[in-house]
């Protein structure tokens, strides 16, 4: 649950951003990352950007995320 996922800010309006994570776009609040701007890479956790990133870091963590969500899905299917 503490896994934060990286993405790029594609739209920004006030505190709210549209962040592209892999192939999908998620809404994230950027109030915790003052000065966040369009085109910034950010780490997103539970709907909030919690830190800025370089592009390189962003790509590295995506692979882990993919495996992770597949696993959680497989667990949830078992219910």
């Amino acid at each position, binding site marked *: 649950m503490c896994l934060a996922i990286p993405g790029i800010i594609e739209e920004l309006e006030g505190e709210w951003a549209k962040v592209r994570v892999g192939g999908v776009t998620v809404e994230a609040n950027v*109030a915790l990352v003052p000065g966040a701007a369009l085109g910034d890479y950010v780490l997103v956790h539970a709907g909030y950007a919690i830190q800025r990133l370089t592009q390189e870091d962003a790509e*590295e963590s995506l692979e882990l995320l993919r495996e992770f969500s597949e696993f959680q899905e497989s667990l949830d299917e*078992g219910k």
Partner: protein
Amino acid sequence: MSEAPSKHPDAATVIERIRALPLRPAKFMEVCGTHTVAIFRAGIRNTLLAERKIELVSGPGCPVCVTAAAEIDDVAQLALREPGRITITTYGDLLRSKGHDTSLADARAKGADVRVVLSPNENIALAQQHPEREIVFFGIGFETTQPGLAHTLLEAERRRLANFTAYVSHKLVAPVLEVLAKDPRLKLDGFVLPGHVSTIIGEEPYGFLARDHGLPGVIAGFEALDIIVALYYLLAMREKGEPHIVNAYKSVVLPEGNIRAREMIDQVFEPTDAHWRGIGAIPMSGHVLRERFAAFDTHLRFGLERVIEDESGFGECRCGEVLLGLIKPPECGLFGTRCTPEEPVGACMVSSEGACANYFRFGQRR
């Protein structure tokens, strides 16, 4: 730490360096459940770790796993108290974790209105769309997750939401590390410290591990290489007899953490004693809402008692020992037989970050 490997050394180089160190058994703990996953993914458990006699034990860094069963019971009962008026929201991971009696999924099956949210902020819209309902958010999580709820509560205050409260069941990492560092049964040689928690709290809160307990710690990322580099640092520091806290995830973790996020946490919550499932009460290891936010406190709104000690135990489930690194999941008699991800007995088998779930998933049977 004289010559630290550059940010992206190749794995072979780092492994070579590890092999160049004297072979002495070592026991480290990866505190964070996401690291447990990363270590399995790296495929080093039965190779590099076995060869170098490095034991890596999982720790308490799985929010679902450490959420007190009595709190789950509490929230499930609240959900069933007035299903026509009360809506419980929480993170999906928590749904299937059982209290002593029941899980939130069970409560839902009995007619309670339990909804999964991906972000605490979703509660705002939910409360506005359903003024006739009480929206109760079951907020678990470590420091990574806490600033989001802090921001949500500030927003709720700004909007004067009258039908939203939070059942705060946060956990703080540093107090549990102190418990682990002091446990004479554990005999740890150091910690792989959680990357994303550190994004918020920075390096300083770990300082006492090295200072007071002589234990090194490395803040690490989640790639195979990050893990191998962290192990190298830990081993090297031990050889030199110079325990420090090393930040090996500098791209994401600033020395001071995320100041804005920490300010927000501090504005909304204050530390309080908390009960960790399977571990027990740890002083000042959780959060309670500050008085200013009393109107948003589920405990006050619905007259609930805070769960600080929960003596009931868990029968044969040995999650508590797993969370303290005292045993590995396969040592539990139920592992893989009566307890599997499909039919979990304990919380450590429910969450994708749980040690039992990951030992099972990656076929690690010893």
